[in-house]
């Protein structure tokens, strides 16, 4: 064994994809050093649970899916508070504030960061809008929501993250306004008829919707009638919307999309499109570098193209695939087709209080595709069908909105049923 083979397997990122890569490495027989680089000093957390924590539905400890004992069993060398600053692909080395580390194989699983694109410079004083991804973000949001002097929150963006932030605010009794540049909520995930039903649900919870608008200006101003003696905040945020309306809020949460955490990858060293382009074993353009999760662009089944499908399950399955393939290679074997990533479709389930939304597949309605709508008293289901060359058609996407979020209900059964049909039709 040469020096390079003896170096550790490096996993950059200690989230779902990283943990699953580590589990797979061990499950498939790799007994060498696994060195994990984490930019925090906590156990891996679940980003899905951050809004529940902020909203008071989960405790801090409940946001960490894996216990210290379980992770200890994986025998990982975790380098905490140690973001990788650059990746030397040719030299098989990682540069970090804590020094340089050699690797034999590397898994990039650094996830994504919420963006504030378009959020204007705040005038009249400093103010950082709230975002929601990490436990630190959730801590800050929780603190704000527990502050009784914060009464009105503006949520900017209409994506899944924005809507879960909105729900956390509602659960804490805040007055919420949602502003989104698109005419409907659930950006890119819902067709208008489904989004409208979801919006009716939001309106029923007292949410003010400002759709088709953006935030044009924000100014930090003194709060009228503020009483510093009672501990309340003496400032508020004056927001001017793109339509010219002005309103005042205590906090603003921004969810304007996500950006892959790939700043440490030197341009030209790995093939990057919107994220790292990977093969069926999650291997990048370099045979010793793999990618999984939000930083990976793998096969999306409906289009057949390589796309980012940034969902938890993908991160888990892709991490597992990468770990398994690496274990195989380091054992001197070729990865088998059984361990290949089979591709995925986009799928989302979100509930804001009692209003449930489930979707899967594509929402691209091309001229060839047909949309069918079925509505009942409490549920709207939209189906997107695509003609098949041999005749007939296949289901390629659906939206389901139900006015009652009841676990185990027919709405969930229908959602699972349609998701399976799309997957089956693609395979």
């Amino acid at each position, binding site marked *: 064994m040469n020096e390079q083979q003896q170096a550790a397997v490096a996993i950059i990122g200690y989230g779902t994809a990283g943990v699953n890569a580590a589990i797979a490495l061990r499950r498939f027989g790799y007994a060498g050093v696994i060195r994990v680089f984490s930019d925090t000093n906590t156990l891996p957390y679940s980003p899905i*649970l951050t809004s529940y924590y902020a909203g008071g539905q989960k405790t801090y400890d409940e946001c960490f899916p894996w216990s210290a004992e*379980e992770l200890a069993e994986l025998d990982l060398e975790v380098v905490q508070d140690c973001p990788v600053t650059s990746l030397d692909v040719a030299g098989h080395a990682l540069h970090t504030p804590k020094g340089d580390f050699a690797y034999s194989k590397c898994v990039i699983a650094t996830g994504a960061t919420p963006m504030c694109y378009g959020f204007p410079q705040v005038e009249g004083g400093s103010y950082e809008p709230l975002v929601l991804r990490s436990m630190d973000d959730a801590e800050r949001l929780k603190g704000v929501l527990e502050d009784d002097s914060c009464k009105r929150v503006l949520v900017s963006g209409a994506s899944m993250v924005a809507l879960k932030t909105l729900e956390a605010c509602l659960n804490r009794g805040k007055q919420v306004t949602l502003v989104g540049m698109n005419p409907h909520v659930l950006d890119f995930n819902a067709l208008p008829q489904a989004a409208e039903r979801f919006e009716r649900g939001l309106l029923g919870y007292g949410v003010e919707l400002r759709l088709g608008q953006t935030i044009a200006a924000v100014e930090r101003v003194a709060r009228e009638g503020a009483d510093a003696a009672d501990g309340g905040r003496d400032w508020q945020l004056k927001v001017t919307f793109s339509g010219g309306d002005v309103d005042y809020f205590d906090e603003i949460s921004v969810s304007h999309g996500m950006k892959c955490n790939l700043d440490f990858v030197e341009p030209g060293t790995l093939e990057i499109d919107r994220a790292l382009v990977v093969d069926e074993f999650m291997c990048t353009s370099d045979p010793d570098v793999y990618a999984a999760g939000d930083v990976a662009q793998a096969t999306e089944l409906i289009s057949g193209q390589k796309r980012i499908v940034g969902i938890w399950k993908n991160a888990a399955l892709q991490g597992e695939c990468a770990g398994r393939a690496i274990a195989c290679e380091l054992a001197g074997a070729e990865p088998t087709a059984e361990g290949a990533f089979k591709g995925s479709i986009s799928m989302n389930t979100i509930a804001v209080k009692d209003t449930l939304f489930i979707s899967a597949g594509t929402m691209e309605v091309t001229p060839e595709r047909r949309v069918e709508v079925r509505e009942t008293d409490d549920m709207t289901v939209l189906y997107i069908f695509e003609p098949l060359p041999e005749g007939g058609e296949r289901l390629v996407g659906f939206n389901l909105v139900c006015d009652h979020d009841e676990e185990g209900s027919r709405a969930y*059964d229908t959602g699972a049923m349609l998701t399976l*049909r799309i997957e089956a039709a693609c395979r």
Partner: protein
Amino acid sequence: MGLLERSDAYWKFTGQCTQCGHCTKACDSLIAADMTLGDIAQALLAAERESETVDQLRMNIAANGQLVQAVRGCFFCTSCKNTCFAHNDVCDLIYNARVDFQKLGLIPREAWSSVLVDEEWDIFTAYRAIHGIGYSDLTRHVATEEAPAQTGFDVAFFPGCSLAAYGPELTREIFATVEELGGKATMIDHCCGSSLKSAGFFDRAETLCDNNSREIEQSGAKQLVCVCPGCANDMKKALERTGVDVEVVSLAAFLNEHGFTPKRELPDTPLCISKSCQDRDGTYLEQTCELLGVDEQTPTIFHGCCGAGGAVSAFDPDRQAAQADSKLSFAEDGSTVVTMCPTCTYTYAFRMMSAPRNLQNKHYTELLFESQFDWSTVFYQLNSMWYGEYGAWLAQVFA
């Protein structure tokens, strides 16, 4: 491999679970256990971690009442999976847990001694033998004293255990129709092994299905017609596993394809369809609705297990009854509950015997064919066979 044979599966599941807790609210058993699916996997791994010997492991698991409840109280209905925001595969988790429970002796023998359907005698074969229900004239691919084995069949009919045992006339009527519409037919009157899986004999269930596959291959049939969605799913997997090129179709799809004309009118009561929990993608439901000539959107449809799945009755009979009640409560008073799997029909009939409701309970084939199940007789015969001349023999065989 550690002390648990299937620890890989638990690690895999542990990696995938977000611990969001939605699955718990979707399942009474998980609520009773106060566990998520991820908790089950983690509890099994924790028990293994804390044990040095198999005996210790057995004791550690047995002492965890929540874990035992969660693993043995599962109907395999996938309600939790449907609700899982990450779409994790729960059946895989629980099947593996049952395998480990079986290996560790954590499932008592009385829970499965009568449903070892890969042995000579199980509750179905015993019932059929005692009550003279046989199909040797229809299992034509098997040689008998009267006739040699035949080959070159067009279609094989797989009625499944419940239909074959409890509805012999209906079975024969359906068989005749299958032959009339599909060509030369034979019958495969074996089990798909679902009861073995529930008891933790996963490998034996697969072997049974693989043997069925080979038998079908030998018959020369090109198509296998299954009545129950669960049988169809298991046989599809087995045929694929064994490389046998036979198409599996549901009876409903077969009848639709051949333009079957129902032999009776649909009842004029409202229909309430009990979607089989084995019909995860709703394909069989769609085919059944088409066959019955009802719009999939029009009748009331309820989903989830009837109470028969996962051999929960052997662990907690009250919970099985409660599950059946819960499902039947969806049906409007005076309506006809239409089941897709004959075992569901049996389960509802059994429940309604002790807790009558103003409902008709029919397998969908009963709405199309002349013959009907006679549940009063079936339950009488099931009960009485434990007494009288065969009682001692049964007690010995299933001890």
